[in-house]
């Protein structure tokens, strides 16, 4: 594998410097709203700009889910990301001394600075600093899935300039992609516990990715591939049922996005046989 994840990590700032975090004026929410509207219209006409909203999940919301977050937000999918662990755990000097942080209250920047001051060489060499450096460009800090309240507006994340936040203001997603079966179990279980107050369906996928930088990078591309396929199907459905075409489409084109999901995943799995996948239809 010629692909070096550290290159990806160090290159993220270049990819993302175009994000206009300071161009969003926060003085009035109305101004902000029109601003975001302009942002969306850049992508094309109203019917074209329909996008599924994604959520990536791994254990610590640092490596795999953030790689997915990066890949998805780079092509301007609305995306949010979470971890399902009880704490954020990053590798330490030995396997028994991990660096542990709490979710929701520690920023990537804090972690970055703390580890840099602890032992810059170590954390540079094992890729942790590069990873945190990438993450702090994407959003403020790791969030815990179990603490997420679906439907709670996330305007503050848009205001902070989180990448992929546009389109997630309503605090809901259409697709959740986890990076490990344990996380998929945790997500499905937690959604059951939340009692699905929103009555909104959500497709929950798992793409089994090993927790290291190389695999995360491959996994990120696989996640993006899956997201593109899903979005393609959803856009097709939208078009077929659109104001112009809703009575013209027939047969295959009329089949809904949801119906196609098992086939999409199966086709995707053929292409990515080393990342065993899993899926269910749950409720937010």
């Amino acid at each position, binding site marked *: 594998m010629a692909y070096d994840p550290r290159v990806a990590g160090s290159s993220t700032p270049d990819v993302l410097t175009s994000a206009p975090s300071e161009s969003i004026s926060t003085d009035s929410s109305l101004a902000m709203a029109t601003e975001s509207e302009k942002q969306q219209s850049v992508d094309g006409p109203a019917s074209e700009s329909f996008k599924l909203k994604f959520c990536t999940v791994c254990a610590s919301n640092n490596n795999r889910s953030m790689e997915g977050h990066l890949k998805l937000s780079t092509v301007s999918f609305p995306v949010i990301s979470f971890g399902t662990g009880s704490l954020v755990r990053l590798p330490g000097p030995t396997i028994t001394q991990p660096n542990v942080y709490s979710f929701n209250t520690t920023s990537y920047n804090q972690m970055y600075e703390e580890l840099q001051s602890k032992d810059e060489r170590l954390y540079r060499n094992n890729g942790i600093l590069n990873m945190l450096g990438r993450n702090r460009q994407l959003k403020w800090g790791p969030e815990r899935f179990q603490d997420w309240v679906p439907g709670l507006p996330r305007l503050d994340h848009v205001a902070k300039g989180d990448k992929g936040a546009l389109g997630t203001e309503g605090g809901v997603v259409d697709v959740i992609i986890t990076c490990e079966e344990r996380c998929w179990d945790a997500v499905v279980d937690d959604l059951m516990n939340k009692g699905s107050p929103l009555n909104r369906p959500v497709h929950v996928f798992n793409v089994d990715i090993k927790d290291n930088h190389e695999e995360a990078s491959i996994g990120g591309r696989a996640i993006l591939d899956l997201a593109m396929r899903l979005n393609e199907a959803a856009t097709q459905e939208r078009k077929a049922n659109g104001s112009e075409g809703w009575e013209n489409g027939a047969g295959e084109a009329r089949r809904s996005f949801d119906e196609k999901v098992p086939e999409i995943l199966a086709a995707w799995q053929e292409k990515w046989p080393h990342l065993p*996948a899993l899926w269910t*239809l749950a409720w937010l």
Partner: protein
Amino acid sequence: MAQMGDNLVDQVAQLNAARNLVLGDAALYPQIVHGILPIIGAHSRLELRRWGSDFLAETFASPVLATAQKDVLAEKVLQTLREILELPEGDAAVLKSVVQASASLYPLVFRHVINHPAATAIWESMTAIKQNILQRWDNFPTAVKICCVKFVQRIIQVQTPGLISDPRRPEQNETSLAIVPRGHALLTIPNLEAESSGLLDRLLSVFQENSSDPLFVNATLNCLSVLIRTRQSISNKIISAILSFNPHKQVNGPMTPSLRVGLKSMERTTRSLLVNIMKRSPNHPLAGKMQQHIERMAQSRVEALDEISRKRTLPGETIDSLESAKRARMDAPTPPTVKIPPLPQGPISYSQLFTLTEDAGLSSFDVKQLPMDLIVRITVPVLARIDPSVFSQALEGIRNRYQTLSQQQAASRQPAAVEEEEDDYEPEYQPMDVSDLGPDQPDATKPEVDEFQPDIVSLGPFVLPQPPPLTEDEAGELGRSAATRVFSMLGAPDLSSQPGKAQQRPLGFSRLAGSTFDRDAWATLLTRLATRAPAGLEVDTGDTKTDRGLQKKPTVSDTVRETLYRYILEDFRSRLNLGISWLNEEWYNDRIQLRFAATQRGEEDSDEPSVPLHYDRWVVRLLDGILPYLDSRDLKVLVRFLSEIPEMTIPVAQRVASLAKDPERVNLCVQALLYLIMFRPPAREMCLNTLEDVYNTYEESRPVAGKILVKWRPAAVETQQSETPAETSQQ
């Protein structure tokens, strides 16, 4: 047209701006919703309707908008939703949002109507929406159908009684049928409950259909958790429906990749739901079944599909407990041909015959060290995934070995025909000599055996002569004398000092009956000897046994019973314990025998199974033995006897009633019956009848018995009292 298009883009932009406003400040919702409703109504363009229904679904699902405010908005919104729903076109995206919004609105409106019984209009709108959705459920596009699953789940959740967490603060209670007041003007509890029960059946029917669509199965599974958790009355029904569902069992036709995705997803979602339930209530009565179901599904997956994982690893749980040597062997790619190593020279043991591996560590591994169930769990999946060609090669190899071996043995045997006897003789020797050495090296004994052979041939096997057969009488006699000796243990003086020791060490729940070697242990032994030992032996002569006196000679068990009876009567006040445990054993044995006889009953014999029943006879006999000696202060003894015997019968009750003949013991009789009436509900009717008889028959009992009957059976006293004046006047 371009003008219109621009106009539309502007409108949507404005609407989005408005949405961002309310997302920022939920207090603005009422204002914005009222402003938006006319724009997005049934008469507006499709894009606007899509946007609008989406927005309404979001609004009523929002966790930041207070319920009270949603409540205020509901009525007007319902009207709009109803109009959109009743449009003929049926755009899937719009319908999807409308159904979602209705699912959020339903509990809200339901609660509103509970508190405002006069709110006819709003309830009518909601009901119309509900009926519309439910009628079109089957014909909706898939995306909308999925949302209908959730809508129906909400209706069931609302229209099934839930928990009342705090009856004093009704506003805190969750919306459910339990908080609907009886006699509500709009909500009739039985109708609502019937509706939700029907909907539940329809919802669960997805598990019975043969061609289960993973979309609907998963959508249903994922919304059931909250019903199982909070709706006690239907949770078991839901769980059994899930337990009867095994996605892998319904596969027919070719296994396509998408079918495989669907099957795996249904299995894993079922598993997640069951695990979710078990985590919430680890002591759930169905927890065992749920665990089994999870394992069974995993098993069928291994059988039915997953060639991918066949190439990867065995299922996780089977591998964890194995030694690394084993794991290495299973992970290694199966060689195309099996190497059959030649057998070593000289005598061969069975284990050597069947061993194909040359790994010394593996062949000396004693499988008996592993628990049975673990072995089963390992072996079954392993057998399931053995490559058939490898398996047949291995079988062929063993067969060849066996055949050459038996040919060799036959060849070496023929010169000396005497060696034939070796086969007869060896099994007798093996348990003594070989068992200590373990099954791995039985060949170690072979040289020895060979050395001894000449002697054995000359001596022949030694067999103890058969004892002369006992006659039935002799056997009975011996049995009786054994029983007598056991009885002598009961009276042995040294045993009486034992209980002190036994009390020092409490025995706990895991004790076994009769394991302490004190008097109680011997008593237990005796009662069981009387009741259980001859079980099944007396069946044929059962009919004669039940009437006493027809027998010529008592059997062992009846002797024991007779002796027990006398032993108890000798000092019934202190030995009542023994009597009660004996009668319990007697009763238990009767039940077990009856059940056994019922299962043994063939189809052709129409007779009732006949089993000798002892309890009824002996309980009456023991009571008859005791009654003459009871005096008026023995209430405790009598009450204990009557309350602890396993079954009250009419003859027993009659015996108790007979106590009332003696004016001194009337009180004893009535109090005993009163105790039974109060604390032995199954016998209550019988005892009341008896008490009524006593009351009617014995004049002396009336003051006491009357008081009780007034309370328990007032009618009896009234008729008696109405008759009494008549009788006295006749006299």
